[in-house]
């Protein structure tokens, strides 16, 4: 049982590390602010989540589990708000935006036919 938990925890931590690394690579690679924000989204959600779940499996009984769960919940509530504030500020200040040429820039269609 213990060895299973150790292996599961290790897999989760490895996956989380890979996702965080991918997020970092995305920040360096993508062309503009908005696309970079999407790369950070990976680190924010599943990257942090996987690392926290891995840490939870290290100590599955006890108060540490609850504390880690709380951190996970707070992260998931705070991140979208922060991302939205950043994106809105960037749009209001007319930050340069790279858009795909083939798409309709107006794109002002309703979501339902």
């Amino acid at each position, binding site marked *: 049982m213990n060895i299973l938990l150790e292996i599961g925890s290790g897999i989760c931590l490895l996956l989380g590390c890979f996702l965080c690394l991918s997020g970092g690579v995305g920040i360096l690679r993508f062309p503009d602010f908005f696309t970079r924000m999407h790369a950070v989204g990976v680190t924010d959600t599943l990257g942090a989540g996987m690392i926290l779940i891995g840490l939870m499996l290290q100590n599955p009984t006890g108060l540490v589990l609850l504390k880690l769960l709380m951190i996970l919940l707070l992260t998931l509530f705070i991140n979208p708000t922060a991302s939205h504030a950043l994106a809105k500020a960037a749009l209001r200040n007319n930050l340069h935006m790279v858009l*795909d040429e083939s798409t309709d820039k107006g794109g002002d269609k309703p*979501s339902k036919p």
Partner: protein
Amino acid sequence: MNDNKVTLEEKSKYWPVHTLSLGITLSLFWWINSNYSNLLLLSLGAASILLVLFIAYRMDVIDHESQPVHLSIKIPGYLLWLTKEIILANISVVKHIWLGNSSISPTLVTIDASQRTDLGKVIYANSITLTPGTVTVDLVGDRMTIHALIKENIDTLKAGEMDRRVTELENKC
């Protein structure tokens, strides 16, 4: 004066369950963070929770928006579905990160939200932002401006699955 009375009546209909919910949340938060069990510290904790409840009551922030207890039956199902969506979106974004710049097609579009209440719109907008690959940039009335990393993400949103689920969640109340 008259308006005041109406809001007070509405409040008395709502606030016991919302105050209780806030009190339980605060107690859990205090206990998880401290884990003390001697009488002096427990009573000090209870006193601080009561103080916070009083301040929140005077600030008039205890209502169905800060404590959405009416959603608590349906929210676990929605969160499970959202987790699945987040994992799928993560895989797609990571794939595009490693494939490089030529594989992405950044798009900015405006879509309609069909939710009636502010709470529903906020849940929808935050769910979109939480999913990697799409960010809600602006929300005016019931029109949302959304920036997406890949064009297909917008098509998925326009298909309206998430919109439908959030509206269902909100209608239950």
